[in-house]
């Protein structure tokens, strides 16, 4: 049957076609892929590109479109798949009108050099150098082609892989230095443990423009992964999440600042493909700039581990309040959403007490809360009185808001919302009363 198919001119079948869809390539690509097939057998970091490309082409054989692929504009059949090391553009061709389609590779673009120079989002291994007391001593290593367990961390339930997703920072080296504090949630003992095993950094390139930098969250405020590099990054990240899922690895994703956008978008891509990670992965958002309500819905939709009581931590700065689509509502919306949609009937009363209890300390509600209340009432069908009471608990002091918006203050992980104020206070205290 297959031999009678009419092949598009210049295309021939690549590799075995027994499993999944057939992959068709032009003669030129055929020669190139054969070359890579040979190179990929040599164990060396030089075969990085080769391994990326061979596994990428093979991934196209699966029956559904991969999570890191997207449809090109204007064509229903032209798709592009994105990895950190390459991009492949392909056409889905259906000869017989049946469900089976063939894949025609139109173009293969290498981006390995760009990702090796941190110009493109990629996954890196970061270790701690004892001599220089320094994180992220990168010495010409290539980014990871595939997410997998390391020599020190297996990715099992007791030893989950720790992966950080950076937001705004000075660059790669700075990101590698900032993230450990957030991955370990500001715990000294956990940081010491992390030093001995290292972690992986999903580095999202930052905008290198000093006037825009640090304030891009205002532009992207509330939107999920709007800018081009973030979209690309989230596709690559979604690919890695899927890889972890396929291998059954336990992973903890920690995002810092704008990294939350990439992380949320990646989860949504997985959601679109109806992937359920069966509680093996979980997320933590630190100083996130996009709504954690959105994150909560996405993580529940793809079956992430949601049992941790804290899964986000932020000093409510401008970025978090504005970028987080009115931050206060997000945390409330999460608990209500958790209550209404994700709580078993018999646990309901207890949970209600918890939500209510957190709110019980309510301050005075102001008129500014009106739109928020309206939103709550409409999205969750609550009584307006209840909505008013809970929004009142979200009073934020002006000092805290201003202080924690300053990038130089929120490099470090803040354990409580008052940490920033405490830091300011400590600074002035040290000036007045010198430590002995």
């Amino acid at each position, binding site marked *: 049957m297959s031999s009678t198919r009419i092949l598009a001119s210049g295309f021939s079948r690549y590799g075995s076609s027994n499993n999944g869809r057939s992959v068709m390539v032009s003669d030129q690509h055929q020669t190139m892929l054969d*070359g*890579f097939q040979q*190179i990929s057998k*040599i164990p*060396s*970091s*030089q075969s*990085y590109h*080769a391994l990326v*490309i061979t596994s990428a082409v093979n991934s196209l054989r699966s029956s559904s479109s991969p999570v890191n692929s997207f449809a090109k504009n204007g064509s229903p059949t032209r798709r592009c798949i994105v990895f950190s090391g390459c991009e492949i553009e392909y056409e889905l061709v259906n000869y017989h009108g049946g469900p089976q389609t063939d894949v025609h590779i139109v173009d293969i673009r*290498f*981006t*390995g*050099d*760009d990702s*090796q*120079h*941190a*110009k493109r989002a990629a996954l890196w291994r970061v270790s701690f150098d004892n*001599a*220089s*007391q*320094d*994180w992220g*001593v*990168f*010495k*010409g*290593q*290539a980014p990871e082609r595939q997410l997998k367990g390391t020599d020190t961390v297996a990715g099992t339930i007791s030893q989950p892989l720790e992966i950080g997703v950076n937001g705004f920072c*000075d*660059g*790669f*080296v700075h990101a590698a*230095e*900032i993230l*450990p*504090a957030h991955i370990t949630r*500001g*715990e*000294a003992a956990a*940081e*010491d443990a992390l030093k001995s095993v290292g972690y992986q950094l999903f580095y999202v*390139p*930052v*905008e*290198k423009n*000093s006037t825009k*930098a640090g304030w891009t969250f205002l532009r992207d405020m509330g939107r999920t992964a709007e800018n081009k*590099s973030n979209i690309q990054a989230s596709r690559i990240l979604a690919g890695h999440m899927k890889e972890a899922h396929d291998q059954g690895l336990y992973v903890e994703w920690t995002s810092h600042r704008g990294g939350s956008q990439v992380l949320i978008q990646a989860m949504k891509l997985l959601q679109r493909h109806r992937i359920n990670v069966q509680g093996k992965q979980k997320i933590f958002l630190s100083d996130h700039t996009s709504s954690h309500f959105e994150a909560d819905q996405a993580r529940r939709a793809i079956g992430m581990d949601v049992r941790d009581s804290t899964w986000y931590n932020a000093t409510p700065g401008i970025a978090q309040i504005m970028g987080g689509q009115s931050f206060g509502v997000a945390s409330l919306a999460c608990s209500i959403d958790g209550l209404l949609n994700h709580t078993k009937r018999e646990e309901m009363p207890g949970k209600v007490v918890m939500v209510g209890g957190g709110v019980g300390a309510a301050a005075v509600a102001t008129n500014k809360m009106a739109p928020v209340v309206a939103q709550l009432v409409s999205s969750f069908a609550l009584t307006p009185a209840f909505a008013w009471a809970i929004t009142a608990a979200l009073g934020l002091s002006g000092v805290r808001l201003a202080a924690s918006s*300053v*990038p*130089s*203050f929120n*490099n*470090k*992980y803040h354990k409580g919302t008052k940490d920033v104020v405490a830091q300011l206070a400590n600074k002035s205290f*040290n000036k007045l009363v*010198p*430590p002995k």
Partner: protein
Amino acid sequence: MLFGTRRNPKAPSYRHAKRIKKDLSGTLVSFVAPDSYSPFAIRQAGDEGDILDLASIDCFKQELAADKTEIPGVRVATIYTGSWAFRGLPLLHGYCGSVKCHFEVKRVDDLPINESLFDNSVLAQEVYKSLELTVINDLHEASSSDPFDMTSYQWPSYLTPINCQWLPRGDSEWVYFEDQSLASGPSAITWSTAISERHYLICNYYIKRSALNGGNPYRIEQCVSRDNFLAFVHKIMDSFKIELSPSAKAEQERVRIQIPQQSRPVLSCSAEQVALAKRVLHHYSGFDYNEKGKDPSKVQRADPKDVAAFLEERIKPRPLPGSYANGPALNET
């Protein structure tokens, strides 16, 4: 200086600096340094003990070479670590880099019986041996831009030793040198001096600079100047006082009588090292860097000529105040 700038970040204040004292089996070492402060790490550095027994074998651990194997005959003990952040304009820049220090005592077990570390040429030899095994041999597999290039090169991560000289600080003579990192990672400054026949003190300072568009060792030079970092390191070193124990002092006297005219051999890197370093530094000059007006998703490397000129300038000797006249090169003695 009230505020730092991105170009010249402000060093930590010395106002609350205190003298830190270490007792190494009767040899008293002390220096003045401000309290450690790291903007990222949760645990602060500087919690080492004040007393170290040089004779005890338990206090020392085997020194590891670049390939993680043990170096035979060399043991090492940490006596002090510190970490200080440098800041630019308040609120705008915040963190611009840091100096981290790591002071160690190295113990040489396999020294010939008639040699003593108080002999400068023996000290220089030992320092170089250790440096060669740890830093000069710190190689990494080169990455190539061409996906079909399968040649496997080993590239150095650092160019060292450069600007080597002998300096007197607090009654002792120190051998001083710097290194230039080529791929990434901090640049180091190393000071070493003998404190007994078999032990020498080695003070490593790691200078790390951070800027928005300076992701690699070549580009960071154009963003943040080294001057304030160096000045801070020198300030700590200027405050060093070493009071040798009676037995060490007797040994020092003995060597002084035996070799009245001590030579001060300097360490240097070879021409091959420099040539390779130019290539490596150029390769990474596009790492995490965007040139204005160019496509930010493509790698933009510097002009090889500029990189070469920078390294040529970098390896020129720059005598520090009070340095001794240059002695012969180590390999020529």
